[in-house]
């Protein structure tokens, strides 16, 4: 069971709407390497992890990813709030408006809707943990691109926080992979 806490993991201060940035941020809301993909990926893979430690880690990182997904959704919502349709059209969000108005929708920066095909769960813990480490690196790179594209200091600050979390997650997954590999060789030897 999950309990919702009425707060963001990290505060989001947006000074003014920015449609262009809202569109780019959709990469992390509904893109292949988005926070949604991350959350679904880890919470799905956790069932078949071989050790209690790795089950716990995937459970807990997966849960944190949902908090990051909420942070990105909050940014997009705030950046689009009250923006007239003409401005949405100028920033290539006319098609978004057609289907979603000002709603926050899990699609990537090009409007491609989110799909479960972005994530894998192979049942092989070594393979799954490699995917997870790659996913954290891809998300880190995407955040670096987003930081370069952003002008609002509040958005930049929140994106730096999220980038740092990807680095920490990568580190923890690496440790989990080592543990699983040691466990597997121990089992083969004895």
């Amino acid at each position: 069971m999950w309990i919702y806490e009425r707060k963001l993991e990290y505060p989001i201060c947006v000074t003014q709407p920015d449609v262009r940035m809202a569109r780019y941020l959709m990469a992390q809301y509904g893109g292949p390497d988005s926070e949604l993909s991350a959350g679904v990926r880890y919470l799905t893979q956790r069932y078949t992890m071989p050790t209690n430690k790795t089950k716990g880690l995937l459970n807990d990182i997966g849960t944190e990813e949902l908090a990051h997904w909420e942070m990105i959704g909050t940014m997009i919502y705030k950046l689009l709030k009250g923006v007239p349709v003409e401005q949405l059209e100028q920033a290539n969000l006319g098609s978004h408006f057609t289907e979603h108005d000002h709603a926050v929708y899990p699609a990537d920066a090009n409007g491609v809707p989110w799909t479960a095909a972005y994530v894998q769960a192979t049942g092989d813990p070594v393979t799954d943990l490699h995917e997870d480490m790659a996913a954290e690196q891809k998300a880190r790179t995407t955040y670096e691109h987003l930081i370069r594209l952003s002008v609002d200091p509040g958005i930049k600050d929140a994106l730096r926080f999220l980038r740092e979390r990807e680095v920490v997650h990568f580190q923890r997954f690496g440790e989990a992979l080592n543990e699983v590999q040691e466990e597997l060789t121990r089992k083969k030897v004895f």
Partner: protein
Amino acid sequence: MDPQQLQMLSEIQQLEFVAVELTLYLDTHPDEQEPLNEYNKATGQLNQLKVQYESLYGPLAVYGLSPSKYPWQWVEQPWPWDI
């Protein structure tokens, strides 16, 4: 949201972040005493601060985690994306 509430919420966010970070660390280092002490310290402070915050501004979580005054306070306060 008034500045005092925002300040308190920010302190909660900071303390809980420490707890989140230490949770992930302890998942892969369960035998380390020092981070475990830090985790328990942050958890104690966090729970104290949450009780104080909730008595002033209403529950941070429902589903049985925190009680509510009348009328049901959960739907009175602004949601995180509206702050």
